[in-house]
Every structure is written in C-alpha cells, then in structure tokens.
C-alpha cells in the first residue's frame, strides 16, 4: 500500500512532520498569545485599554472642563456631579478623566525611557561580558542606590517642574531593574548554539544582537516595561503629591496634593481624595497583573506541578488489546 521514499538520505515523508507537535503559527507574537490565554492578563489588559481610551477621548467623555467652576467648593457627590466637586468647584469626575492623560503619558513615556536605557545596558552587558559587563554593572549599582524621591526633589528644584523633566527623571532612575533582568537573560541566550553558529559564520555582533538576541529577549522586555509603567505612574503620583509636578497640568497626583493642601480632610470631603487614589491604584494593579502574568508565562520553571511523580492513576486494560 505505501510506497516508501527509499534511497539514501530521504528526508522522511515530506510534508509529514511525524509525531511532532502541531505547528503553532505565532500570530502577533508570544506576548499576544500569552495575553489571550490567561484570564488574569486579559482582564488587566482590558482595564488598561479602557484607561487608555479614556485618556485619548477625554474631551469627549468628561462632562465638564478641567478648569471649569461648576458649583460650590467641596460639593458632595450628587446626581449632577457623581464624584462631587473639589476646592475650586471643579467637577472631580472630569478631573479624573483629564488627569488620566498626564498619569498615563508620564507612565508610558518614563517606562519607555527606562526600557531603552535598561534594555540597551542589559543587552550590551550580557552580550559582551568581560570588562564591559563589569563596568556597566558598576554603573547600574550606583544608580540603584540613589534614593529616588530625594533625587527627584533635587532635580525638580534645579531644573524646574515640567512634564519632560518628570519623565526623564523617572526614566533615568528606574532603568536598573530592567537592565539586570535583561542582562541575565541575554547571558543565557548568548550561550545558545545558534548564536555560536552565527558567530562562526562571521556575523557581526550588531547583527547577532538585533536579529537573534533581541527577539528572544523582547517578550521579557515587554513584561518588564509593563511593570515599570506601574512604577512610573506611582512615581509621578508621588512627585505630584509632593508638589513637584507640573503646576499647569492636571494629574491624579496633583489632585491628591491639591486636596491635602486645601484641607479637604477637615471638611470630610473624601471625594476629593479617594477617587484619584483609587484610579492610580487600579491602573497600577492592572499593569502589575499584566506584567507578572507575562513574566510567569515566560518562565516555565515556576511551574512545579509536573515534578510530582508517583501520583499516576490506574485504569483497566483496553478490551481490544492484541
């Protein structure tokens, strides 16, 4: 019945991968497939998506303007103003909506800066090793021990309180975690045989880094960046709360700062403090969940269930046994 593809060196029945796993065409990459398959990541991702959309369409979504006085100071929540008004009579719900813009912009931009610096340092350090590695790790250590908030205070005091400065400060302080994680992974990827093969081929280091190492490291970099977004948003909130934020912009941190400065507590105006705090918490939580879900999925060793032996089950011998 079957014609054998005989002859020397037949590669095996063409088109039949034997008992290999079915081809998984990676559409859109590893990260996307992880997000799709884990509810935790999907929910977190959706929350983030909603937040981003809110930020983008803020002018259309917010009932009032961010500087529009629409009622008495500290008016409590009502049907007209679901989250009440702040000390200047401005609708808090609108402030939350507009405030998302700054928080997200700073969060993503600062995380991007951190990713670029940290990723580059991690890759260079991990790939080249030797003195380069030692030097870069020393520098990383120096940055690691710098206390973040005092530095931010100092820099804000010297160079002024602008959005760009905030982004740069946060990015420059928080790249170290990324650098270390990426370096570790690059070090292990570097030892893979296909990298050695590329070197034996005469491929340049930059080619190897961009075409072989980076794609391997990218998912982890993405996961790490998402986590850094959480940190960056929190950092921005803290800075704004300390009065170091850009005074001309609305952000959740500024809302909290404003509430404290205007003594919202003494008039029991919880609606001036809680909503921005909750908003920050929700977004940070979403980022953290998403980031850790991706990281977990990329790190199969964390699963130990498969190590439990001896828990096999018994079943009857199949009837049609030969």
């Amino acid at each position, binding site marked *: 019945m079957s014609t054998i593809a005989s002859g020397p060196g037949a590669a095996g029945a063409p088109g039949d991968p034997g008992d290999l796993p079915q081809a998984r065409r990676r559409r859109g990459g590893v990260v996307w497939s992880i997000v799709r398959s884990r509810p935790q990541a999907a929910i977190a991702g959706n929350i983030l998506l909603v937040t981003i959309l809110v930020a983008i369409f803020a002018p259309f979504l917010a009932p009032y303007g961010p500087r529009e006085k629409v009622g008495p100071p500290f008016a409590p929540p009502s049907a007209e103003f679901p989250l009440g008004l702040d000390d200047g009579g401005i609708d808090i719900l609108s402030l939350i909506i507009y405030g998302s813009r700054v928080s997200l912009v700073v969060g993503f931009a600062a995380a991007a800066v951190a990713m670029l610096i940290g990723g580059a340092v991690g890759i260079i350090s991990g790939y080249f090793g030797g003195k380069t590695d030692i030097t870069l790790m020393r520098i990383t250590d120096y940055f690691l021990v710098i206390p973040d908030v005092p530095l931010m205070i100092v820099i804000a005091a010297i160079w002024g309180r602008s959005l760009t400065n905030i982004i740069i400060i946060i990015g420059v302080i928080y790249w170290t975690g990324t650098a270390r994680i990426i370096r570790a992974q690059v070090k292990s990827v570097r030892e893979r045989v296909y990298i050695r093969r590329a070197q034996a081929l005469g491929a340049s280091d930059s080619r190897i880094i961009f075409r072989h190492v980076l794609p391997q490291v990218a998912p982890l970099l993405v996961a790490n960046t998402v986590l850094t977004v959480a940190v960056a948003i929190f950092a921005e909130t803290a800075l704004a709360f300390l009065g170091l934020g850009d005074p001309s912009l609305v952000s959740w941190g500024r809302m909290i700062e404003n509430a404290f400065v205007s003594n919202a507590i003494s008039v029991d105006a919880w609606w001036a403090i809680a909503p921005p705090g909750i908003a920050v918490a929700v977004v940070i939580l979403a980022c953290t969940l998403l980031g850790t879900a991706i990281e977990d999925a990329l790190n199969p060793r964390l699963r130990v269930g498969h190590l439990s032996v001896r828990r*096999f089950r018994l079943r009857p*011998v199949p009837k049609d046994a030969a």
Partner: protein
Amino acid sequence: MNEPVLTVEDLHVWFELERGGELHAVQGVSFELRPGERFGLVGESGCGKTTTILALMGLLPSSASVAGRVLLDGEDVLARGEQSVSPHRWTDIAMVFQGAMNAFNPVKRIGDQIAEPMKLHGLAEGRSTRQRVGELLERVGIPAARASSYPHEFSGGMRQRAALAMALACKPRVLLADEPTTALDVMVQAQILQLLAELADDFGLSLVLVTHDLPIVAQVCERAAVMYAGEIVETGSTDSLYHDPKHPYTRLLFSATPDLYGEEDVVSIPGTPPRLDRELVGCPFAPRCDRVFEPCASIAPPLRPTGAGHAAACHLNDPVMRVAS
C-alpha cells in the same frame, strides 16, 4: 528455580496532553525477567522504553494512567497504585536513571544520598549505615573516603558509579538501568558495563538495560526486546536478534548501526515513527517497512512466537497471512 522474578503483563501507559487528548506511550508491553538474567530493552527515542521501566518503579506523574500488571513474586505491585509500589521501590526493584550523573542533589554529600534509600526503608541506623555506604562505594570502584564528597567533585563516570551504589543500597533483586552509559566516553562506558555485569553476578541481580545502542545490548545482555511505537515488536536472545531477525525493524536497526569491522553499507530508515496520540491502524512500522505487503496497513500483527524463546510482531512470519495476500 526458574520462576521469573518479574513479569510484566500487558502494560499500558497513557499521558494526558496539555492540549487535550492522550498519548498512548506504552501499548501492551509484556515480558518476563528470570533471576540473574540480563535483559535488554532496545529502541529509539519515543518508543516507550523509558516510560515502561518508570512504570515498573511507579515513577509516573499525575498526568499518567496505567493499565496492566507487574508481578513481583506473583504479587501485582501496581494493584493499588503508589501504595502497593512504594514498599518495593529500592528494596526489590531499583533504578539507575538516564543522566544519573545529574540526578544527585548538589548540596548533599554523596554518602548521605546513598544512605537515603536505606534510611527510607528503615534498613540501617547510625554507624552501620556509614559502614555499608563505604562498602558499597568500594564495590563500585570508589574509595570509601569519598563518601563525604559532593557530587560536583566527582567526574561523570564516578557519579555513575555512585548512582549504582545508591541503587544497590537496599539489596534489590532487579536493577533497571536507563541509558547508563549514554553521555560517557567509550572507555568509561566499558568500565561501567563491566561493573554492571560483575554486580549482576555478585549480587544475583536481574538486569533490565534500556538503551538505543544495539551493540551494548549485544555485548551485555543475553536476551532483549525491541520496542517501536510503544510496542514490543520482537524479542529473543541477542544472538538470534542479530543473526536471525524476524522483524524488519530489528533487521534495519542493525543495518543502520555502523560496525567497526563490518564492510556492509550502513542504511538509514526513511520516515519517522508514528504519532502516539492517535489510534494506529495496522502495523505501526508499515509506512517505513521495506517488506510491507497487503495485510500490514489494516491488520496489526500480534507478537507471535517464531521459534524457541523468539517472538516477533510481523505478518511475514505468519504463513496464513502470506498465503491470503
């Protein structure tokens, strides 16, 4: 006393697959092991040989389900799952694992790890443990003083010897060795194989040697079974397997193995083994067989005797099938 010390009857093992479905890794394997016998289980990757002996030790994960009987002195050790297997593990059946060289805990001393099975089964206490460990080490060719060393201080060959010592700690009657020499140099391999043979004789062990390397089985074992796609396709004395193979896969496997002094052409077997997550129809080797004929694709050949102590699962040995086609 020629009663088999171990009888495997119609062993099946299935693994649950993450993506759904099952992998039928071992499909009705049966064989007997006599006292003092050296039995080889030969096959290529994925044929189910390692899974088979793991089943004998009951070392299968929760995704596995097992059917069939494993009789040790007439008692079915698989009857109640882990409960019925664990008393026999190490005391009656012991195993040396593939990559045993890496199976040691790097932060515990070798001596302590060798003593572990003894302690587990309450077979030794205190000073007598140390003495016994020392004896075991000497017996496998390691100075007793090295019991206080850590695994990384041993070479690959020495770790393999230590693994043997650990397997023999509770004086088992059956030793299962899974690719015991795979990552070792030729000379060290010869040393370990010689050691295995000596230990089998000295301790009165029955040995099941699992490997993909036919020449090793030819050298060490008296009898062997060839596995393919989860089944035993041929079994018999190693002499008859080489000189008078009754299954095309056995014959082709020998032809695919280069020999030091042989002048014949070395051939490869085209194609790949079948997937075991689907039901197979007919002979599993049919797509790759060079003597395939009519009944092969639709009827699965049973393992039938072809001579004294020799059996094969191939329609070519069945005069009825050959006439009918």
